[in-house]
């Protein structure tokens, strides 16, 4: 078991955004979290990745209790994430964003920097190579030298994924990676995630695009009002009446169009 939470809670004032969530994900798994808007999915990510402290409960990552571990340390331990509201380094180029993403895998310090040590050179070489490879991997090579803030939305999303990958994580948390992508781009994203899985990465994602969830997730966890209300294989969950009611809605073929004449 790679990540596990026990009775995890996060409250904002009186609001229980995450409520007693028991969750786990195994190495190599692809798990999707779905749930209505405001059901606490992003907050769950925030707590797990150390950006916000948990109100109560435990988080165990690679058999260690990381409940009180800070965000930067979590990343070093092998968990990386993307943000729902994109948080790239806006004035750095695409390539530089990836270099920063490699930070936690570097070892060089002040001294290496000063004397341009062999270690630093080796690190730089690897960083450069890695950045090139990742840009290629997410299809952003043409944007290499553009500042992140000037990239189109979809490209920014992919850059965020690439940046998370740059830290060579074992577990990657993707918060709505397909938001703002058209169906064809979602297909590409699917392929990308599939390749990540092949690389042995464990993937936990939040997504509203059912197409993506159905195609890639091995297991789906459903949140509502901060609680886990269902869990299972994609097709089971999809037809779970609780989920249908809270999230997917009744199947209607088409929208009603009242035309004025």
């Amino acid at each position, binding site marked *: 078991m790679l990540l596990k939470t026990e009775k995890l809670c996060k409250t904002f004032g009186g609001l229980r955004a995450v409520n007693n969530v028991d969750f786990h994900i195994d190495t190599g798994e692809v798990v999707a979290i779905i749930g209505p808007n405001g059901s606490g999915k*992003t907050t769950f990510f925030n707590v797990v990745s150390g950006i916000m402290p948990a109100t109560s409960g435990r988080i165990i990552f690679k058999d260690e209790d990381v409940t009180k571990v800070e965000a930067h340390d979590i990343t070093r331990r092998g968990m990386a994430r993307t943000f729902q509201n994109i948080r790239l380094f806006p004035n750095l180029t695409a390539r530089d964003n990836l270099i920063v993403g490699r930070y936690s895998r570097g070892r060089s310090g002040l001294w290496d920097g000063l004397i341009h040590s062999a270690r630093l050179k080796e690190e730089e070489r690897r960083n450069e190579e890695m950045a090139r490879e990742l840009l290629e991997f997410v299809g952003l090579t043409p944007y290499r030298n553009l500042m992140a803030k000037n990239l189109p*939305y979809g*490209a920014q999303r992919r850059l965020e994924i690439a940046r998370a990958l740059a830290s060579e994580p074992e577990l990657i948390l993707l918060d709505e990676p397909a938001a*703002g992508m058209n169906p*064809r781009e979602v*297909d590409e994203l699917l392929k990308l995630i599939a390749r990540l899985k092949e690389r042995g990465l464990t993937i936990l994602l939040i997504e509203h695009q059912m197409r993506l969830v159905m195609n890639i997730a091995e297991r789906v966890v459903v949140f509502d009002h901060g609680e886990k209300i269902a869990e299972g294989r994609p097709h089971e969950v999809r037809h779970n009446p609780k989920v249908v009611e809270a999230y997917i809605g009744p199947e209607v073929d088409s929208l*009603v169009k009242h035309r*004025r004449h």
Partner: protein
Amino acid sequence: MLSIDGINVYYGNIHAIRDISLTVEEGEIVTIIGANGAGKTTILKTIVGLLRSRTGTIRFQDDDITSASTAGIVRRGIALVPEGRRVFPRLSVADNLILGAYSRQDKDVQRDLAKVYEMFPRLAERRHQAAGTLSGGEQQMLAMGRGLMSRPKLLLLDEPSMGLAPLLVRQIFQTILDINSMGTTILLVEQNARMALSIADRGYVLETGSVVLTGSAADLADNDEVRRAYLGE
């Protein structure tokens, strides 16, 4: 109602919009589809005067609004629900909505507020919460609600379904249809091309800043090129 004629928009020396012309007739739903970076957002921002075209004209209800101020354009009856929601993070949900009605002369704001709350009960629940702490989807609802509060004649929507749960996506599209049927003209930018084409009358397909295809929504939905490139089939 809206006619755009030969506009060219640049970011520095990046030529983002190349000689685009398009029209929206009163009462229509028109959609613009295109890949990431095609320039959809840029067009909408140019219409409301947040970006300026170097050439061409933009006319709205026979007025030339090419160089009008954003506020002036909005007061004429155009509202934009911007990409990325752009809610005022430190204002409450209610205040965000009320600000949507800033340009209105009439005082019937309360009734519309009630309507928005009815449309999005979650916003009613959270009316005193700071908008910046809403979840992504909640913010999207708020942005949409805020856009409606100005009772626009022409509503520009930039990816309104982004980040919404499936149930809500359907609901949003239904809402778009509803407000359209109540007389609001709509120009819709959507990644969910399938849905967009299913509710639109006409559509434009954009590629790297140029219109490459235009036609009725039904024709576009049947076009092989479109199906492959944007519907993922």
